[in-house]
């Protein structure tokens, strides 16, 4: 019975924790411009992260050490350092975007300029990382993030033309008036938003923080194979809402406030309020995860003690890196760089860095020294390798496409 409760809680927090500012921005902007023609990318992205997150979780559960910790042993100091620099950089950029996202969410509720909220948000993020127990942190923000389901409720109430939507999703075609390069650029952004590297670092380290053992492999699988796809479905509802409300009107959303309009129109003030809670929880939760991931990656490369499962004086460098990342991340958005723009860049660059961050996972998950009898199945390897090939192609075309399409403008 206890196990069932644990699995249910894990799934719910996985759903609530899936969507972050990157998914909100990517799905809404794509729906507004390209309708449902890129919905398939979200499916591809969700399958990808399921496969690799399960691997990363399994590695940490079986070997007792997170994937990133093992990368250096497996790939050597040089390659792992390049991996660290890339992973840290995009995780840091994502952290800045999430802090901006939290500030924007609070701005929506209070009408006080988001810049004024950033220092408070940064302090709160740090405070929760410093003092709140890991499981409590995960559960509270994961469950609160479920408030985003209000978008699905709004969609349901609308009684949209489901047939038309499904047709648009299953017959991908570049809409009239849009260019192919831009279409592909948005596809890359969507993929990066769904398959964010920090998700994997956090999930893997989280398995150790939670003290998972072999008996928890089931929980790991349930969280990933049920929770993540449902989370992906939630981000797709954002795309659908944008398709229904923004595309026909020619609205190109560039503000978080616009995202909330559709839900407000259908469900009124209460729906709007619930949605704002959802925005806050999703972005704050992601800010926590990215902040911790900044600390995890650096500490695990150098071998420092890391983790919330020890007292802070036992892991000084880990906490210092986390603190500095939060401060610098807040500084980045305080520079009045548009948080939405920072988000757009973070998801695209994440996509470009994916082969670098995902390849070691595949490698380590196949290593019998760490995994014992729990190495990847042949199917798992086949899918994993297929994805890596795809991600390599994505990585190569990202920067040229960014220049060609002027970052999707």
């Amino acid at each position, binding site marked *: 019975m206890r196990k069932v409760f644990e699995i249910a809680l894990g799934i719910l927090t996985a759903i609530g924790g899936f969507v972050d500012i990157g998914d909100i921005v990517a799905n809404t902007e794509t729906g507004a411009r390209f309708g449902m023609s890129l919905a398939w990318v979200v499916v591809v992205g969700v399958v990808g992260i399921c496969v690799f997150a399960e691997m990363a979780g399994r590695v940490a559960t079986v070997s007792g050490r997170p994937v990133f910790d093992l990368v250096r042993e497996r790939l050597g100091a040089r390659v792992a350092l390049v991996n660290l620099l890339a992973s840290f950089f995009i995780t840091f950029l994502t952290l800045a975007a999430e802090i901006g996202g939290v500030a924007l969410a609070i701005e929506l509720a209070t*009408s006080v300029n988001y810049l004024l909220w950033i220092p408070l948000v940064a302090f709160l993020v740090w405070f929760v990382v410093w003092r709140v127990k890991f499981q409590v942190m995960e559960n509270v923000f994961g469950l609160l993030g479920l408030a985003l389901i209000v978008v699905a409720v709004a969609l349901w109430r609308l009684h949209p033309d489901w047939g038309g939507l499904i047709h648009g999703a299953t017959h991908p075609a570049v809409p009239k*008036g849009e260019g192919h390069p831009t279409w592909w650029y948005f596809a890359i952004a969507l993929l990066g938003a769904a398959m964010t590297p920090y998700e994997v670092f956090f999930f893997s380290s989280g398995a150790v923080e939670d003290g998972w053992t072999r008996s928890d492999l089931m929980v790991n699988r349930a969280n990933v194979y049920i929770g993540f796809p449902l989370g992906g479905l939630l981000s797709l509802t954002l795309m659908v809402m944008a398709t229904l409300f923004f595309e026909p*009107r020619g609205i190109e959303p560039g503000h978080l406030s616009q995202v909330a309009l559709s839900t407000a129109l259908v469900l*009124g003030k209460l729906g709007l309020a619930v949605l704002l809670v959802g925005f806050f929880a999703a972005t704050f939760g992601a800010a926590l995860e990215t902040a911790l991931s900044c600390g995890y990656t650096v500490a695990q490369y150098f071998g420092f003690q890391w983790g919330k499962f020890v007292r802070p004086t036992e892991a000084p460098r880990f906490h210092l890196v986390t603190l500095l990342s939060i401060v610098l991340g807040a500084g980045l958005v305080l520079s009045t760089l548009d948080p939405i723009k920072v988000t757009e860049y973070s998801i695209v660059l994440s996509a470009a860095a994916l082969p670098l961050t995902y390849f070691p996972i595949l490698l380590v998950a196949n290593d019998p020294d760490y995994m014992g009898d729990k190495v990847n199945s042949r199917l798992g390897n086949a899918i994993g390798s297929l994805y890596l090939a795809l991600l390599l192609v994505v990585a190569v075309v990202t920067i040229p496409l960014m220049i060609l399409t002027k970052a999707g403008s």
Partner: protein
Amino acid sequence: MRSRIAALLLVAIVCGCTGPVRSFNVYASKGGKTAKAVVSAVETARLAVSAAARDRAYGRYLGQVLAEAERDATAAQGTFDAIQPPDRRTDRLREELDGLLTPTLSSLADLRIAARRGDLVDLPRLAAPLAGLSKRLDDFAQAHQ
């Protein structure tokens, strides 16, 4: 070699930014893009007004949506006005677009002011001209892609 490639990349990116424009077509297409951006802002504002009319949203939230819409439209116009029209033919295009933009921005400002004051009942009336303006801006954008 690497620095040369970096320099080339930089030039490519910078050339994407605004500057003096040589041909009518390029200028017209920039006008079209401006119109498109303003349509986006106007339609956002109209959606917000419709939410206000049906009492679907808080005044504070609406004030923000309308203020952002006004800001976006103003920014689009500002960027366009900064471009030097290359010849007299483009002058006429500029007048045409400005003729649409000025009343639009004025309405958006009215909406923002009313919303921020809490006069939500006035919003539908103030938004009335936007329906026609939006259509004409959209036609302009289609004509000058």
